[in-house]
């Protein structure tokens, strides 16, 4: 029992961070029909912004996190949209996808060049306390990661469904032409989407780096797992990405303990194949029709 609780807590804590990155995939897909293959690097980079703030500017942790958030909004939100997405989108989805792959490589190599190839220590954002719950060791860090991720995603859901701006963003995602006719500033709504993605990436980065350490290559695994989570949950639904992330986190831990550590990364892949074969829209996604 204690073992199962431990697996669930660890799996949900890791899965909630995957979910944050997976939501980014769904947001950008809805806003610009783009799959951002640099999403993993989007999660990797803000941790280094925090370290720059702390180690080069002498900031304390939370001011450095705020500094990282501002830089992320500017670089991963505004600049990404203006310099990559807008010029590439008229040429079709495929060139844009390739551009995001190139962007991911550029970000990875730049961090390696600037900050080094070795992992960097990253300060914990929660107290390092551990509580005993029915025989399982439950850390404040795991619970904190889970809570913050859930709050961020639920807050986003509420923002999109309960506010005027949020509904305008949804309208722009569903049918930009009609939204424009109805007076929605579609360009601004798309920009908001990119900024929200940058903010979520920053939160994910700050939560995961104390565990994974800050390293230029962190985005490789994160990006892949988040991509799988988004497909499993449903690429066009935020709640789908949430479910996909949590599911992958728990399945990964369960398979590592009860099946085999060597094949742990194969199990989410099997789930991905099963979803594509039997429910292509994902667990909570809705089917999308396209004219060709």
């Amino acid at each position, binding site marked *: 029992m204690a073992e199962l609780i431990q697996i669930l807590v*660890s799996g949900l804590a890791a899965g909630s961070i995957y979910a944050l990155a997976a939501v980014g995939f769904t947001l950008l897909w809805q806003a610009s029909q783009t799959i951002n293959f640099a999403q993993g690097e989007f999660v990797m980079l803000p941790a280094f912004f925090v370290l720059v703030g702390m180690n080069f500017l002498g900031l304390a942790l939370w001011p450095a996190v705020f500094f990282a958030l501002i830089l992320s909004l500017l670089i991963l939100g505004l600049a990404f949209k203006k310099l990559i997405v807008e010029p590439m989108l008229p040429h079709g989805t495929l060139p844009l996808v390739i551009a995001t792959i190139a962007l991911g490589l550029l970000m990875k190599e730049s961090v390696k060049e600037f900050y*080094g*190839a*070795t992992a960097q220590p990253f300060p914990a954002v929660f107290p390092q306390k551990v509580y005993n719950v029915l025989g399982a*060791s439950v850390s404040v860090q795991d619970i904190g990661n889970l809570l913050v991720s859930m709050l961020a995603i639920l807050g986003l859901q509420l923002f999109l469904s309960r506010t005027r701006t949020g509904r305008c963003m949804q309208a722009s995602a569903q049918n930009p032409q009609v939204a424009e006719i109805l007076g929605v500033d579609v360009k601004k709504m798309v920009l908001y989407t990119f900024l929200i993605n940058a903010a979520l990436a920053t939160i994910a980065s700050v939560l995961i780096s104390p*565990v*994974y350490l800050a390293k230029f290559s962190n985005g490789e695994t994160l990006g892949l797992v988040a991509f799988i989570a988004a497909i499993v949950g449903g690429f066009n639904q935020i709640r789908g990405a949430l479910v996909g992330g949590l599911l992958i986190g728990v399945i990964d831990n369960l398979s590592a303990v009860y099946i085999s550590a060597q094949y*742990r990364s194969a199990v989410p892949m099997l789930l991905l194949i099963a979803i594509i074969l039997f429910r292509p829209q994902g667990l909570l996604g809705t089917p999308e029709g396209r004219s060709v």
Partner: protein
Amino acid sequence: MHRNFIGATAMALALATTPLAAAELKVGSIVELSGPGAAAGVNFRDGVKMGFEEINAAGGVLGDPVRITEYDSQTDPQVSRAMVQKAIDDGVHVIAGTVFSSSTVVNMIVARRAGIPQFTGSEAPSITGMGNPYIFRSAFGSQKGIPKMARYMAEEMGVKKVAVVWANTEFGKGGYSAFKAEAANHGLEIVADIPTEQAQSDFSADVLKAKTSAADALFVYLTEEESARFLREARKQNIGKPMVGETTLIGHKVIELAGEAAEGAMGHVGLTPDADIPAMTDMVERFKKRFDYTPDHNAIKGFTTAHVIRCVAELVGSPDSQAIADKMHGLTLTVEECPGVLMDVSWDDTGEMSRESFFVEVKDGKQVVRAILPPN
């Protein structure tokens, strides 16, 4: 007449300069200055650099300053091979490096073919097992460290059952096999066998398996970054069992990365800047002043390598590569005759080295020596 004078002068100059040129010792420092091995390589390079700077300031070797040329292997075995060839083409007498075993096993073939002695920082057992008469260790191979550690676990710590967490790579398999054999020799029962993947980030399942096993202690054989992640997760899950490993579990980089989670971890190290040896402490202080960071064991390897090269070249009386290689086999250098080696050290016919080593525990972010282990 005029032409004869010029010819005679040229010949006289050539004769006069030849012995001088032959006495100048040229060393190629070939290490991982970029790529994933940069942390280890830069430490080794700086150790070599400081060693020769001090030697040159004191008059050099055989009356001449040593000329060091640095080459970057980029942590790439094929690049390292090309760099060794380049150094040989540049006329070096001796090579210092590389540190990463995967590079050394490839590039040592080139140095061997050219008859150039090579002082490596690598610790993979296979390096001195290939019958290469030109390869020499600057720290002993892991096959020498693990028996010392297994004995310490069984006899001093009273461990009976052990969980083994190891990296499923060439590096990890070597350590795992060596530990498995030694565990059998010392009556340690392996109750949990936990292989992990290269560059693994999430160790929650692995820590859980080790925690719920019947082990009295863990033997952890992962790379430095993986060790740091493992230690952080172990602390998160309150593992409550002693964790023992090699330099890769309790090295200074791991302590920096794992922070408080490294507290209490124990392990065997060939060299440690925290050893209570005055010559070592003094070297560490000079290094900190020179490079503005705390050296790790790789820096000490580099520093002692510079002094070994000096002492051997002076023993043979020339920078002759073959004579240096021949002299190294079966050589013992004591601190009295060669103070820069910091501790008495010997090499056997395979180039493997033997020296006292340390069993340390991490306390307050430092390695605290619990026992000095005799040479084997």
